[in-house]
């Protein structure tokens, strides 16, 4: 669904520096990390993007095209009234990637952010319960990063072996 032209005009007025692009009918904007919390609040409260479809991340470590930074967070938003969609991108650097959480805005972000933390190691500040969700808690790696191999010796050999006698 293409985004409403009125929303795009409002976006350009509000964030004149945000890079905007379009691909196959989807509008995407790139927002700087500093202005992300205010932008999210503005999008939810004033532009009525009330449904958070997904939060995910892409690791552009060896990507063929130049990207602003290593990690690209993706927020997929939708409006349940007029079915608008919008993709918001925030790029984070390699060293200590952290960003304010959006759980205060959308309760549904809780597990999405936990999964992104689990798989990419991005810290969401102010998240109520930022723990690993799919990987075991003892795990130390972030498996969906591009420098993590598909096959090979994993972390499993580091885990203690629990026998019936010890349990």
């Amino acid at each position, binding site marked *: 669904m293409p985004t409403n032209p009125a929303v795009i005009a409002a976006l350009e007025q509000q964030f004149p520096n945000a890079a905007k692009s379009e691909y196959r009918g989807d509008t995407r904007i790139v927002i700087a990390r500093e202005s992300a919390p205010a932008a999210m609040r503005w999008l939810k409260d004033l532009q009525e993007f009330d449904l958070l479809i*997904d939060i995910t991340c892409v690791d552009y470590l060896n990507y063929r095209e130049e990207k602003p930074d290593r990690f690209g967070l993706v927020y997929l938003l939708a409006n349940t009234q007029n079915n608008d969609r919008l993709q918001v991108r925030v790029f984070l650097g390699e060293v200590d990637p952290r960003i304010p959480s959006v759980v205060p805005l959308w309760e549904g972000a809780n*597990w999405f952010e936990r999964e992104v933390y689990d798989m990419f190691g991005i810290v969401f500040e102010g998240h109520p319960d930022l723990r*690993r*969700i*799919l990987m075991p808690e003892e795990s130390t790696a972030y498996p969906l990063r591009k420098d993590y191999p598909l096959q090979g010796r994993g972390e499993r050999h580091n885990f203690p072996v629990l026998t019936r006698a010890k349990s």
Partner: protein
Amino acid sequence: MPLIPATSEAADAAAGQDYLWTLNFGPQHPATHTTLRIVLKLDGERVVDAVPDIGFLHSGFEKIGEHLDYNQYVTVTDRMNYISPMANNVAWHHAVEKLLGIELTHRCQYIRVIISELARISDHLLSTGAMGLDTGAFTFFLYAFYQRELCYDIFESMCGARFTNSYTRVGGLMHDITPVSIEKIRKFVREFPKTLDEMERLLNRNRIFVDRTKGVGILSKEQAINRSVTGPIARASGVTRDLRKDEPYLKYRDFDFQVCCMKSGDTFARYLVRMAEMRESLKILTQAVENIPAGPVNIAINERASLPDKSQVYQTIEGTITHFELIMTNRGIEVPNEEAYGATETANGELGFYLVGDETRTAYRARCRPPSFIHFALFPYLIKGHTLSDVVAVLGSLNIIAAELDR
């Protein structure tokens, strides 16, 4: 009398008391149906708190998606929501075709509508059937599962596999649909409403079932939207969103059907919405089967995206060249350096794939938006203040598939 839930505030007040005891529900429990674990904190029989613990079936499907090509990965999507694999196949290739910009043939779009709706019926049959099973209605489950077997028979006649179908391909399908399959679908559409009536007669006014489900696990419309809920669970709470109507993909614009909604948002409403959706799916199936357009299933061979038919590969030079151009490991489909999110309405909710292409034969990132993952996050909110026996009823109504939950 329906159970009157304790208020959530009362449950919160009791949370710190030392007379509470902890119950470990799962990972192996008959009512979870799959491998998931919930740590329940109980005050007598009341659930004060529930902490879900997931990841037992995590197998790195998204990492595998970065190493398999666009046709190979469809076998992995079968194993995500394995109670409606056809719908997952359609969702995956819908996203891939959006990334590549492929326009499918009319015949292919109709067949994909048919398999999506059959998958929706088989998914709803299992989720309502298992919910009946958990609340004590065993016969209902048997009725539902017998009809599911008939859906499997149709899938088998289409692609040779009953369970893990892998029926779709980039730009087309594995095989064209045959008159045998069409006749089977016609027979199913003719005979299934009778069973559906019987199933509704078994449970809709059944005292035990209604008492155990009505007013249990209420989700308001505001909470449903705020917690990213989609699909039948959101529609049972009064959210009218249905991608088949709101963003008509494939050929859904051609069909006459309704979006089924309820306002009460409880477990019983979720059951009723699923039952009503099966009737709407039957309406779509009837229209689709009788109006399948003639013509090719796969897109043209010169677009160099869909695998050519085997007869073309063996008998024509264009077919052989195209086959090798697509299959060889240093060749493949031409993919732009772009990103796209394609979403479909599956039985469980919005199933989407966020794809990043990088000019190679495999995706740079293949993110799946799994509806079960989002719906299971709801569970502690829904169960707080209810009794232990309601855990299975609410869990059944959410239709959590652990393979999709953990991927």
